[in-house]
């Protein structure tokens, strides 16, 4: 159907036409790719494709189904005429009692045996080919071999004058489809069981209902309809004693209930027309205030059907067409399943190819559309029937076009029955929903299991089924939507709500379990079930966490205990949560704890709880909430340690080591260096302990990696804090400023010096303390209250770090060794990344080769993984390793170039993740550095100042640039201080940046601006001091700031060095 002349046409319109034809044609062949594939193949037309192709596919599905159905109708429409024959073999046909697509059902007298039977005569066209006839006979024979209380017995099969027929027991009763109609009619006239809002779906009240159907409906309604497992209700005895007005029903394909009441006067039906009173005397025609009895009746019906199905399935027989019309309720309260396997028997090859339209589509299981039914498809169909009995509505509304058209839509979840009628018992709803899970694996795995749960319900025992559906769906949904991370806080909140309410059921069961110790055995099985449910819930929750808060960077990749999904393999583009979502997720921790408290034996629960704590730690760390991160990490460690005591697994060891390292990082970010070091040491000892206890070959790559990471973290100097090793000749550009620690680096790069002229800054002090106190001679104190660095002039670099420093170098070199070995075997970006950080660390001793190597590795990573912000961030940090304060004016220009590169990257990263403080902080610092470099460069200019105004233009230009960068730095830092009002370092930095800015104004003699910015700086510090009066460091800084006289105008003096 392609039109070549159009295909070749260059215009977009006809290209699209050709594409439409191609797509349509492939739909017809059944080989169409997904719409998305097309959209991606033809990006120019993608919008149009996405908009229109689904409709095309829909139309084609419609056509396919329609034509299959037409063929079917066509092949089954030639019916035997009314009583074409008076007898068939041994049977004298008495009257027609039903007809449908498959043929006509007659009541017949089998004269040789003197009994009444039902004879189904198939439409002549139903069996065209010999093989169909053979199949029909085969199926009928198998059906005849089924002997079960709830299966209509098949007596025989035969052919007469070209008519194929089979003979079965005559059932006095009504088809369930008709009973449903009667129930709907009753509900419409004020049944109490149903909401007034429960709209009866069947409005064709024009169809007269048989008395039988009405009576059954009433009996059901009043709860007097008996199941085979209970006493036969009186009403039926009575009704039965009088000859039943014969509404005997046999179904033929679709409900064949049109004829019985069409007024044919049947001899035997007239004898003693029953007693209108029977039903009404026993069971009021109006609705008694029934309680649970209707639901019990319904459960009994389903139970009987399930029993029949179970029996048949055990004998290897599928029904394939379970639906209300094929279920007969007799006057004894027995439910009969009719037409076993008939659907298969008369199925035409061509029809079956198009998806088996034989059964009524509405009751078919999704997999049946695909032509792959198994016994669970029967369970599904029974489930839908049950659903309809509960709600009086078909589960699948055919107003919903999408349902019948596409299998995909068919898998849509139905409305939970209780949504339609809250009076429906929860357990019955749960049973129903489990039976109609779209995935066969999620359903009851046997009709027997379904029957067992129904029996439990009837006996008021707890059922085994759990409403896992929500979770399964959630899990699938999470899998499908990697972008869950973009969830609003509200959506996340909803997820969590679902999590809590679902798991509440588990908690309840567990509690109940403890009470019912006498039922231990049953309970155990139940608990197993409940645990499985719970584990699904937890798993889903885990996914939510993973998606919402994936590990911030591969360097600290979560290797979860049991997560063997692809989640970890792929490098996620690092979505990040907002503060609000973090708070929600944190709330959830409590939920884990309560859950765990209810069942202290559940290992998985503990594990999940530990994992969740760790994740919260990760999130809070990422968001800069270090204290929260710390407590979450500590809890996580505690929980994992408990677990490890009972079973030492490498995965647990790994987790614990990782968390210690994260904790150390957080502590370092909080300037608690001694504690930080001790956390790293813990990580090391956990790893070493494991390594020593095992054959080294058993140490996994992950453990080795963690070891390397620990070595790195332990040896990483506090950025720029090691003046003991001046990076090359002082003032040399490119001298390392030092990388930040993996946390947000408040102590980033140039540690906030009170003044940029104080070259040696407070940093030496820090490192000195770390070392001296690292041996435990100092009480840990909150850095806020006792921040070590005093005014800079007190600090003097000492050489006493040297031996320790040498050890650090060795440690880093070991780390590099490990990492090199790992990445040679299995290249992995996280190895490369860590390797780069190690090289950078080494480069701080002035080894430019190492710096070069770090840059190279990071550049490669950024190229390979452009989505990973952290790679760019670290590359930017590495570029920015220039220590501008030591830059000689003559070299300033050389410093500006890498800094500009760094700025570009930092801006990009910050734009991507505006809410991450690490990136914002980094950007502010780079701006500040650039400003400083420009200032230094400007100080060169005085040399030319002697020729007044000649070169002052370029000086002004440098001052402009410095001002621009300083301003940006102040602005970004200002936002950070608002976000973290209590973090001293942030505020200090702001003051420092303002001070820098003020110096630009001073250089220009703009004293108003100078004073205003200066005042801002001191005000900020004063406010900080008010909040934290014990922060002596702030006080001294403030004093210094106040003391400092404004530089002389145009002094332009170069920095001290």
């Amino acid at each position: 159907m392609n039109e070549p002349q159009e295909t070749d046409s260059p215009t977009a319109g006809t290209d699209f036409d050709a594409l439409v034809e191609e797509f349509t044609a492939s739909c017809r062949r059944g080989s169409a790719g997904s719409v998305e594939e097309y959209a991606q193949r033809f990006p120019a037309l993608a919008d149009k494709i996405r908009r229109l192709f689904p409709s095309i596919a829909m139309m084609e599905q419609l056509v396919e189904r329609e034509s299959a159905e037409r063929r079917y109708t066509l092949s089954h429409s030639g019916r035997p005429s009314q009583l074409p024959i008076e007898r068939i073999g041994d049977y004298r046909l008495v009257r027609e009692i039903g007809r449908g697509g498959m043929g006509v059902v007659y009541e017949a007298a089998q004269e040789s045996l003197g009994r009444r039977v039902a004879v189904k005569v198939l439409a002549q066209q139903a069996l065209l080919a010999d093989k169909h006839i053979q199949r029909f006979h085969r199926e009928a024979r198998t059906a005849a071999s089924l002997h079960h209380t709830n299966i209509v017995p098949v007596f025989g099969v035969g052919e007469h004058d070209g008519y194929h027929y089979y003979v079965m027991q005559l059932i006095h009763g009504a088809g369930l489809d008709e009973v449903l109609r009667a129930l709907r009619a009753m509900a419409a006239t004020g049944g109490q069981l149903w909401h007034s809002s429960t709209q009866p779906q069947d409005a064709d009240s024009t169809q007269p209902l048989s008395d039988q159907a009405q009576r059954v409906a009433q009996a059901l309604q009043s709860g007097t309809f008996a199941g085979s497992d209970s006493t036969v209700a009186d009403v039926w005895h009575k009704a039965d004693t009088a000859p039943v007005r014969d509404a005997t029903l046999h179904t033929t394909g679709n409900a064949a209930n049109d004829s019985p009441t069409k007024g044919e006067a049947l001899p035997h039906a007239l004898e003693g027309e029953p007693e209108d009173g029977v039903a009404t005397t026993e069971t009021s025609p109006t609705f008694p205030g029934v309680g649970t009895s209707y639901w019990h009746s319904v459960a009994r019906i389903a139970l009987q059907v399930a029993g029949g199905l179970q029996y048949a399935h055990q004998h290897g027989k599928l029904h394939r067409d379970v639906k209300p019309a094929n279920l007969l309720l007799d006057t004894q309260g027995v439910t009969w399943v009719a037409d076993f396997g008939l659907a298969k028997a008369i199925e035409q090859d061509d029809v079956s190819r198009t998806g088996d339209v034989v059964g009524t589509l509405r009751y078919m299981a999704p997999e049946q559309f695909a032509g792959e039914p198994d016994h669970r498809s029967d369970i599904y169909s029974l489930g839908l029937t049950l659903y309809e009995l509960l709600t009086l509505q078909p589960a699948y509304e055919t107003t919903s076009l999408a349902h019948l058209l596409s299998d995909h839509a068919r898998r849509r979840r139905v409305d939970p029955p209780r949504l339609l009628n809250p009076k429906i018992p929860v357990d019955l709803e749960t049973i129903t929903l489990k039976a109609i899970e779209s995935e066969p694996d999620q359903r009851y795995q046997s009709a027997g299991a379904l029957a067992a749960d129904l029996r439990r319900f009837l006996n008021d025992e707890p059922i085994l089924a759990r409403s896992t559906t929500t979770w399964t769906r959630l899990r699938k949904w999470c899998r499908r939507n990697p972008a869950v991370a973009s969830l609003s806080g509200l959506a996340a909140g909803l997820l969590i709500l679902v999590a809590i309410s679902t798991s509440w059921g588990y908690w309840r069961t567990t509690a109940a379990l403890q009470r019912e110790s006498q039922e231990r055995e049953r309970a155990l099985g139940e608990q197993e079930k409940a645990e499985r449910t719970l584990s699904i819930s937890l798993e889903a929750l885990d996914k939510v966490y993973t998606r919402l808060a994936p590990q911030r960077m591969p360097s600290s990749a979560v290797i979860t205990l049991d997560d063997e999904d692809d989640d970890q393999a792929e490098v996620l583009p690092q979505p990040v949560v907002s503060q609000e979502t973090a708070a929600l997720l944190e709330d959830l921790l409590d939920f884990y704890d309560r859950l765990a408290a209810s069942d202290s034996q559940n290992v998985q629960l503990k594990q999940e709880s530990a994992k969740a704590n760790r994740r919260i730690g990760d999130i809070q760390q990422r968001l800069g909430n270090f204290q929260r991160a710390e407590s979450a990490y500590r809890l996580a460690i505690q929980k994992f340690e408990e677990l490890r005591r009972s079973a030492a697994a490498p995965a647990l060891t790994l987790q614990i080591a990782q968390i210690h390292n994260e904790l150390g990082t957080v502590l370092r970010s909080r300037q608690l260096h001694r504690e930080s070091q001790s956390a790293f040491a813990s990580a090391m000892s956990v790893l070493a302990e494991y390594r020593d206890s095992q054959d080294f070959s058993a140490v996994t790559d992950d453990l080795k990696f963690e070891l390397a990471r620990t070595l790195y973290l332990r040896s990483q100097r506090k950025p720029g804090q090691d003046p003991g090793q001046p990076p090359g000749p002082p003032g040399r550009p490119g001298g390392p400023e030092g990388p930040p620690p993996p946390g947000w680096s408040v102590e980033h790069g140039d540690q906030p010096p009170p003044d940029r002229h104080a070259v040696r800054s407070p940093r030496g002090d820090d490192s000195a303390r770390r070392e001296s106190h690292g041996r435990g001679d100092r009480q840990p104190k909150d850095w806020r209250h006792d921040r070590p660095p005093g005014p800079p002039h007190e600090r003097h670099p000492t050489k006493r770090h040297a031996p320790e420093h040498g050890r650090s170098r060795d440690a880093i070199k070991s780390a590099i060794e490990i990492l090199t070995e790992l990445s040679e075997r299995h290249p992995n970006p996280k190895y490369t990344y860590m390797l780069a950080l190690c090289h950078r660390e080494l480069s701080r001793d002035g080894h430019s080769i190492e710096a070069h190597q770090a840059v190279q590795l990071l550049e490669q990573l950024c190229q390979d993984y452009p989505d990973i912000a952290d790679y760019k961030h670290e590359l930017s940090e590495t570029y920015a390793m220039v220590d501008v304060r030591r830059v000689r004016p003559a070299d300033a220009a050389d410093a500006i170039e890498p800094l500009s590169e760094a700025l570009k990257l930092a801006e990009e990263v910050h734009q991507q993740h505006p809410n991450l403080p690490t990136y914002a902080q980094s950007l502010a610092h780079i701006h500040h550095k650039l400003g400083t470099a420009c200032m230094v460069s400007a100080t060169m200019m005085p040399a030319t100042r002697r020729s007044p105004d000649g070169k002052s233009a370029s000086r002004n230009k440098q001052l402009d640039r410095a001002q621009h960068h300083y301003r940006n730095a102040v602005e970004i830092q200002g936002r950070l201080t608002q976000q973290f009002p209590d973090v001293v370092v942030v505020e200090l930095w702001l003051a420092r940046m303002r001070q820098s800015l003020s110096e630009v104004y001073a250089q220009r003699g703009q004293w108003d601006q100078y004073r205003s910015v200066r005042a801002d700086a001191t005000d900020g510090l004063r406010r900080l001091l008010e909040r934290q009066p014990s922060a002596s460091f702030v006080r001294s800084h403030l004093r210094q700031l106040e003391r400092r006289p404004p530089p002389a105008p145009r002094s332009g003096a170069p920095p001290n060095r």
Partner: protein
Amino acid sequence: MSDERRAAHSGGLPWNVMIHENQQHEDPQIEAQLDLLRHGGDQAVADLFQQVRPQLERMVNFRMDRRLVGRVDAADILQEAYLEVARRVNEYLQSPTCSFFVWARQITWQRLLTVHRAQLGAQKRDAGREVHCGQLGPMDATSISLASMLVGDATSPSQAAMRNERADRLRAALESMELLDREVLALRHFEQLSNQDVSAVLQISKTAASNRYVRALDRLRELLQEVPEQS
């Protein structure tokens, strides 16, 4: 919507007034067909008809009123159509304004109409009650067929009535579509015609046919979106 208006769609227009600027006489395929017909005699007509027969059968099956299913065999209609095609082929060759297929389709369509009238004509209303298409005449083939895909099996009146009710929404939607749009959908999908054939059948330009089609798909999409999806 009146029957007259409905009759205007698809086969409703006499094929022989179809003279349209968009006819592709230079289409080599059509030229080859004409050549074959001119020189190949009866055998050529039979062969060509055989070629287009599946499509014609699809059309007949799709357009035939539900009430006639089982009473009238598509094969009979096609047989009669073939006889007429053979009888009038020279007429066609004298001034071929469309492809052989489009022409044969028109003839078949007319046969189908005749059968509809003969079978349903007088007692249309009465018969209509049975199949719940009371308000629709036999010309409503498109609506009926499109709506009936909701139906499992139309043989049980009670079920058909239920379905009918549920189909109401869809039918209303289809009815609300412009006649030509709906017809374009039917031709493209149910009869599997190419855009070119559609334009020939409906006597509109190819661009117009294409635009109509896109519009109809859009409309269908909107209708489907009105169905609340919960998943």
